[in-house]
Every structure is written in C-alpha cells, then in structure tokens.
C-alpha cells in the first residue's frame, strides 16, 4: 500500500496539520517507507480472529450520577491562549 501526494495533502487536512508544498513529497516518501514495512501484516491469516477490544479482562466501571466536578471556570480557562469573560475565544466561525 502506498500513498500519493494528493492523499498526503488530504490526510494532512483531515489531521489539521499545515503541510507546506515542499514538504509533501518528503513526507510521502517517509510514509510510504513505513507502509511498505507494515504491509507484511497482510501475509497472516486472520480469518475468525476477533480484534482485541480491550486489554483488560474486566467489566466497564460505571460511576454514580452525582455532581463531582466543574464549578471552576477560572481553572478551566487559566491556560487559554485567549479568553473573555470565561469564554474561550477563537477566530469567527462561519456555519
């Protein structure tokens, strides 16, 4: 399996990573090297093998419906690069 430059640009877009045009080809080559290497997984017969759904042999723990967090807008916004009246501020989003 290998990727072309368009695919690299598309994945970068999906991942919201700016990728300058001159970096597209080197990245493509690096990715293809890795994909070529993982291709060997195709040689294993996995028919009837269930995917590993959880590493731990345990029931999903559930918690009680009580309010135990929140109430501190200061702490939540303390690290915000930009905030206003406890709102997070971002460039205008057009729906």
């Amino acid at each position, binding site marked *: 399996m290998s990727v072309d430059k368009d695919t690299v640009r598309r994945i970068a877009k999906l991942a919201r990573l700016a990728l300058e045009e001159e970096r597209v080809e080197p990245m493509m080559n690096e990715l293809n090297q890795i994909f070529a290497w993982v291709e060997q997984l195709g040689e294993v017969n996995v028919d009837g093998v269930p995917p590993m759904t*959880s590493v731990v042999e345990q029931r999903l723990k559930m*918690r009680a419906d009580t309010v135990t967090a929140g109430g*501190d807008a200061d*702490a939540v916004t303390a690290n915000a690069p930009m905030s206003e009246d406890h709102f*997070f501020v971002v460039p205008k989003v057009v729906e």
Partner: protein
Amino acid sequence: MNARSAKLIEGTTGPWEIVIGLEVHAQVLSQSKLFSGAATEFGAEPNTQVSFVDAAMPGMLPVINEYCVEQAVRTGLGLRAKINKVSVFDRKNYFYPDLPAGYQISQYKNPIVGEGEVLIDLQGGETVRVGIERLHLEQDAGKSLHDQHPDHSLVDLNRAGVALMEIVTRPDMRSSEEAAAFLRKLRAIVRYLGTCDGNMDEGSMRADVNVSVRKPGAGLGTRCEIKNVNSMRFIAQAVEYEARRQVDLLESGGTIRQETRLFDARAGETRSMRSKEEAHDYRYFPDPDLLPLELEQAFIDRIAASLPELPDDKKARFIKDYGIPVYDAGVLVAERELADYYEAMARGADAKLAVNWLNNEILGRLNRDGLSIVDCPVSADANNAILAMMADGTISGKIAKDVLDIVWSDGGDPREVVERRGLRQVTDTGAIEAAINAVIAANPQKVEEAMAKPKLIGWFVGQVMKETGGKANPQVVNDMLKTRLGIADGG
C-alpha cells in the same frame, strides 16, 4: 387507494411520494454528564459546568455514568426495542471549536439499543407504525456564539459531554403530518419515562430530518438531511419545502445532490450548509479509554419492572375502562400530566362527563391564561369535588362553572365556596312552587302565550331561575312548569 396514497404530492409529471426519516437527539435527564461529573443544568454561567475531562485537558479520561445507561435502556424499552447486552463506544473524530477533544464519544456499529417501533395516531384515526432503527448514547458538544463580536466566536463548554440519546427511525414516514406526529409521540414517551424533558426551545430535543422523494413504487431517492430543526412547526414546514424543492428539481431534469441543509425559519426554506460540504471522514474506532459496555439481564429487568404506564397502554385503558372515545383518549394521554390530572379528577365520577368538563372548562381557561396543566390553579381533586357536587345535585351545571371561576381566581375548597356563598341548588319543590307562583302571578299575559306556544316555557324557566337566584334545579323547574302550565312533554 389506501389512506397513505392520499399523502402523495402532485408534480407536473404526476404524483410523488415523500419519504422521511428522523434522527432525534434527546438530552438525557441526569444530574451529571455522560462521562464526567460536571453538572447538566441549563443556563449556567459560561464554563462553570465543565470538568477537566469535558475541557479535554491532557491526561483526562472518561468514566461512564450508570444512570445515563439506565435512562437509555429505559427509553429503549419505551420504544419496544431490543436492548443490546453488549455495546461499544467509538470515537467520532472531527475538528470543531465546540468539540474539545477533537472527537465525540459515540456508538457506531454496536449501539446500546436496537430495533423498535413507535405507533403514531393521525387525524382521522389512522395509525401508522414508525420503525426505530436504533438508539445510541453519545456526548453533546459545547456551544459557540458567533454574534457577540465581529472577528471572534466565543466557546462555552457547559453543554459539552452532556448525555444524548440519538434515536434513528427507519424512513417510514410519508408526510409532514406524520413526521410532526412522530416527534410529538416520541416526546410524550420520553417525558412519561422521565428520560428527557423534550424541551425543544431549550434544545434538549432536536431533530435532523432526512427527506427524499420518489415515484410511487420506485426505489428510494437521494435524500437530503435538514439539520437541527428545533420545533414541531418547523419540521412540518421544512419537510414540505424540501419535498417540493426536490420534486421541482427532478421534474426539471436535475438530480438531487446528497447534502446537509439548514432550515431558515424566517424564509421558510432549506438551504445548503456550505461548511458541511466537505465529505467527513470520521475515522470511527472503538474508544481505547473505555471497555465494551456489558449489561446484565437483571439490570434490564429491574428497569423494565419500574416502567410507568406508557401512552399507548394508558390510552387503551382509558378507552376500555372509562369508555372515552378514541380521539379524546389520544388527547388526554399526549401529556402524562394531563392524563394523570384527568384520572385524579375522574375518580368516582362519570368518565365521559369528566372528559367534557376537562375539555370544555379546564383546557379553555388554561389556554386563555396561557398556562399548562401543571400550572393549573385548580387541583384535580377540586375538580373532582365539583363533579361530585354536580352528580349528587348539590349544584347545577351553571353554578358549577361559577364555582370553578371562583376557585380559579381566588383559590379555596369548592365545597366551602358553595356553602359560604349559599350556592346550593334548590330542589325543594315547595320553594320552587313558590317561585313559579310568583312568576306566573307577575306575568299573566306570558302564561297565555306559553300555553299557546309551548316553546316559551324556556322564558319561564329563566325567570324562575332568576327568582331563585339561579339556584333552582333547572330540570325540576322545567318539569313543574310543564305540569303547571299544562304543557305536554315535547314542549
């Protein structure tokens, strides 16, 4: 021609069938969020109901709220649906400012609830079965405000992480009426169950509407999704506009592009959503911070045993036990509070009279005052007392309405009001005879006219009622007058 073919719309090339499916997002009633311990109340100050987990800070992890799981199972049972004992939480990955983690924890291929059904009753008595495809649990997103500032949007994460139930129907609806009826019924069911307050104004219930059209008998057409329609009225308008848009487009030789659209309530039209044009690749995969959710049969049984009587069963019981007509029963059970009010009111009373009293007197006044049944100033018990007094002749129908008005505005116990104000109906024939004598004596001319024209007895009844201050039993007055004036029955 069956009833459903009456729902076809006419195009220039012939009739078209509208096919509608709904995806409803219903906020779960719970104290805290689906995967965090922050509160869920509506209307709090920005970012005050946000845990570090909701803010997707580094190293934070989800832990599921057992009550939200219960609520989903409860709703599934209310939808007569299959409860899946094993379900999986998946991450739905995309970037948006109100989605702090860059993914939403949802359920993709293995939802907690499977197939079910909802029966909807339409005007004219037709019942339509709408299939439910699935119900799954997922996180709600936060809120962005775009109109506070020219260059910025503001993000509030209070709503981020609140538990949502996404309920997906099969494309079984064929008209805007059916779509609105479904939504109303679903709302009633979740309110009965206490799993969602169904409040479309506050956004605790929202619907995405999928609309496509086809020639009758043909396969499914391409559908468009109208997102986030937040009132019943808009649902109907949106469906009608969109169906018409699609028919016009197809008949003029165009093709329907599968896309997401918005409903513009002011213009009454649907519009393509520019930002959603790019195909989303959500890269679903099972959330590795969680394990598959496994439910014990005992857990499900416990919830099943605690279900309240649901609308369909209540309606059937009202029809059977109270003899209420189908339509009236349907109206009563649409709101659990109304059905409960009615039952308390009708205890020991004539069921049909109670329905009429409710419809004619209570609902009218509530409407006039802009109140809902839960805010009714007169309790069900008070109405029950009024009905009882009418039944045993203590008061007449007219006096009963007066008593209602008094209790409505001033409060108080109806029986006390009747006593205090001396409103007891007069049935004592002696007193009535005295009143009749007085009226006859004062109106000899009218007596002669009445004997000639029996219909004029009504005037005499009115006068006798006035003479007794409205308290005489009108039936007794009528009978005695007839005898007195020598008017045969039938006058």
